C-alpha cells in the first residue's frame, strides 16, 4: 500500500474525467489516496472526488489559482508534497499536468515518468510503461534514487470507474503560498467547438487527404456528433487547410488513445500510426485494400468514404435511439 497524491484537474469548476481515472485506480489498489484540488471556489468539487474513492482532498484556493498558472501550481504542490510526504504523485498527461509536473519533480529533486500508458502499484512504489519513439516502442521507467515517484498518465489509459454516491472523502484546507510570481495568466480564450478534445475523447473520428475540402469534413463532423466524438485529422488534411493543426493526430500532432478510432480516407503513414496505435478499437475506411492503415485496423471497410460515412451516421443514430 502506498500513500498516493493525485493532482486533480478542473477547468471552469468542472473536473476532468482523467482525474477520476487516477483516483479510481489508486483507490482500487487499496492505497491511501490523497487529492490536491487547486483553484478558486472549487471546494464543492471535493464531494465528487470522494465518490471515486479518495480518502482526503486537500483544497488550495486563491484568486491567483482561478486560471491555471504554472508557477503558482508548482509552489502550492511543492509545499503540499513536502508536508504530506507521499510515496507517489500522479497527474494526467494533459496540457496542464504535463506542464507543471516536471517543475514539481525538479523542486522535489526526483524524476518524472511522463505520458505513461500503464500503471501498477507495487508496495509503496509504481510500475509504469510509456511509449517512446512515438509509440513505435514502449519502455518501463526505473526511478533512480530515493523520494516520491512522479508520473503523468495518458488520458483514457486506465478507464473511468463508476462513482459510488455512498463514498466520501475528508476535505481539508491546504495552504496556498504562491511566492513571487513572474508569470500571469491573464485570460483563457475559449475554443469555438463544443466537441470534446481529441486527446480526451472516448471516440475519435478522423479524416484524411481524401476528404478533399474543409466543407466535406461536414460528414466527418456529423458522424462524430452522433457518437459524441472528437474530430481528428491527418497531417495531409491539416497541411491542406481542411482542419486546424490542433486536430492533427500523429507524431507531430496529438497522441490519442480512445476506445474507438475511426480513420476515414487516411492511408496510415508511420507518423500517423504513431499518434493513434494505442487506440483500443480501430476502424479504417479506405478505398485502397492495400493501405497500411489496414495493418492495424480491427475492422475495415473498403469503400468510398463519401458513401459509407453518412450511412454509418444513420446506423449509429438507430442504436443510439434504443
Amino acid at each position, binding site marked *: 500500500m502506498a500513500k498516493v497524491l493525485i493532482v486533480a484537474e478542473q477547468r471552469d469548476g468542472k473536473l476532468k474525467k482523467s482525474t477520476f481515472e487516477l483516483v479510481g485506480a489508486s483507490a482500487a489498489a487499496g492505497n491511501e489516496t490523497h487529492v490536491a484540488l487547486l483553484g478558486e471556489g472549487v471546494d464543492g468539487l471535493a464531494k465528487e472526488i470522494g465518490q471515486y474513492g479518495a480518502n482526503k482532498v486537500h483544497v488550495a484556493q486563491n484568486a491567483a489559482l482561478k*486560471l491555471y498558472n*504554472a*508557477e503558482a501550481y508548482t509552489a502550492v504542490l511543492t509545499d503540499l508534497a513536502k508536508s504530506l510526504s507521499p510515496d507517489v504523485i500522479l497527474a494526467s498527461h494533459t*496540457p496542464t499536468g*504535463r*506542464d507543471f509536473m*516536471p517543475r514539481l*519533480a*525538479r523542486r522535489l529533486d526526483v*524524476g*518524472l515518468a*511522463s*505520458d505513461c500508458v500503464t500503471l501498477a502499484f507495487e508496495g509503496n512504489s509504481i510500475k509504469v510503461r510509456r511509449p*517512446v*519513439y*512515438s509509440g*513505435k*516502442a*514502449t*519502455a518501463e*521507467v*526505473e526511478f533512480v*534514487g530515493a523520494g516520491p515517484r512522479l508520473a503523468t498518465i495518458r488520458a483514457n489509459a486506465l478507464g473511468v470507474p463508476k462513482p459510488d454516491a455512498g463514498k466520501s472523502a475528508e476535505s481539508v484546507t491546504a495552504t496556498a503560498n504562491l511566492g513571487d510570481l*513572474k*508569470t*500571469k*495568466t*491573464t485570460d*483563457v*480564450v*475559449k*475554443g*469555438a467547438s463544443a466537441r470534446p*478534445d481529441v486527446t*480526451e475523447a472516448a471516440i475519435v473520428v478522423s479524416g484524411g487527404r481524401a476528404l478533399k475540402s474543409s466543407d466535406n469534413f461536414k460528414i466527418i463532423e456529423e458522424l462524430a456528433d452522433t457518437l459524441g466524438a472528437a474530430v481528428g485529422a491527418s497531417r495531409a488534411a491539416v497541411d491542406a487547410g481542411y482542419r*486546424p*493543426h*490542433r486536430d492533427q493526430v500523429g507524431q*507531430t500532432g496529438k*497522441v490519442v488513445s480512445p476506445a*474507438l478510432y475511426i480513420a476515414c480516407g487516411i492511408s496510415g503513414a508511420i*507518423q500517423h500510426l504513431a499518434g493513434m*496505435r494505442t487506440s*483500443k*478499437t*480501430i*476502424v*479504417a475506411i479506405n478505398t485502397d485494400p492495400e493501405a497500411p492503415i*489496414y495493418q492495424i485496423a*480491427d*475492422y*475495415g*471497410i473498403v*469503400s468510398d468514404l463519401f458513401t459509407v460515412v453518412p*450511412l*454509418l451516421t*444513420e*446506423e*449509429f443514430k438507430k*442504436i443510439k435511439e434504443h
Partner: protein
Amino acid sequence: MNLYVCIKQVPDTETKIKLNADSSGIDPAGIKWILSPYDEFAVEEALRLKEKNAGSTVTVISAGPTRVVEAIRTALAMGCDNGIHVEIPESADNNFAAKALAGALKKEAKVDLVFTGKEAIDDGAAQTSQLIAEHFGMPCVTVVLGAEYGATSVKCKREVEGGAFEMVETALPALLAAQKGLNEPRYASLPNIMKAKKKEVKLLKAADVGASEADQKIKYKNFQLPPPKQAGKKIAGEPAAQAKELVRALHEEAKVV
C-alpha cells in the same frame, strides 16, 4: 538581445525502430538523425526576433553525444550565429540534459530569451523545457503558439485542450517552448549551409557545466515493440450492408458504442 535555442537531435520520423539484443534500448544502426521538428519553430522564432532587433545574436545549444553536432549545424545553416555542444552520454535523461543545458546558459554573460520545442519526438516526454527553466531559475511558458515581445516581458498564447488558449504574460528572461504554428520555419540557403560547415562549435564537457551522472533521475528498461496486431476483419458487401455490419460489430463484439 542575447537569444538562445536549445535543440535535440532525434531519429527521423520514418525510422523503423528495432530493439537491441537484450531489449535495454533501441538498435542505433541505420538511424537517420534529424533536428527534432518542434525545435525548428524554436530556431525560427529566435531568428525572427534577431532580425527585428539589430545587434542580437542567436546561439544554439545541444546536449548529447558527438552526433548532435550535425543538428547544431542544421540550426547554424538556418542562420544561428554560434553553436555550443555539451557532451553528455546517450543514456542521459531529461533532467541530466536540462542541467547540462542550463549550466551552459549560466556560463553566458547575459540571457534574454531561450527557445525550445514543446517536446522532442523521440521520448516525447515534454519535460526538458520546464527543467532547463527550473535549473536556470527563470519562468517558462510551454506550447507557445504566438508571442508578442516587449522590452521586459512577453505575452504568450499557449495552446490548451479543446481549441482553447491561455494568455500568459511572463517577465524576462524567460524560456518559451514552441508549438507548431508559432511561425513557418525557413529552409537553409546553400551559402548558409556552406558557412555553417566551417563555423566552430564550442565543446563543453558535462563537468564544465556542473552536470553529472548524479543528475540522472530515471532510466528506461525492458523495451518492447507493440504487440503484432491480429489481422483485422474486412467487412464485405454493399456499402449499406457494410455500414450495418460495422455498427453491429462495434456495438456487440467490441462493445465500444
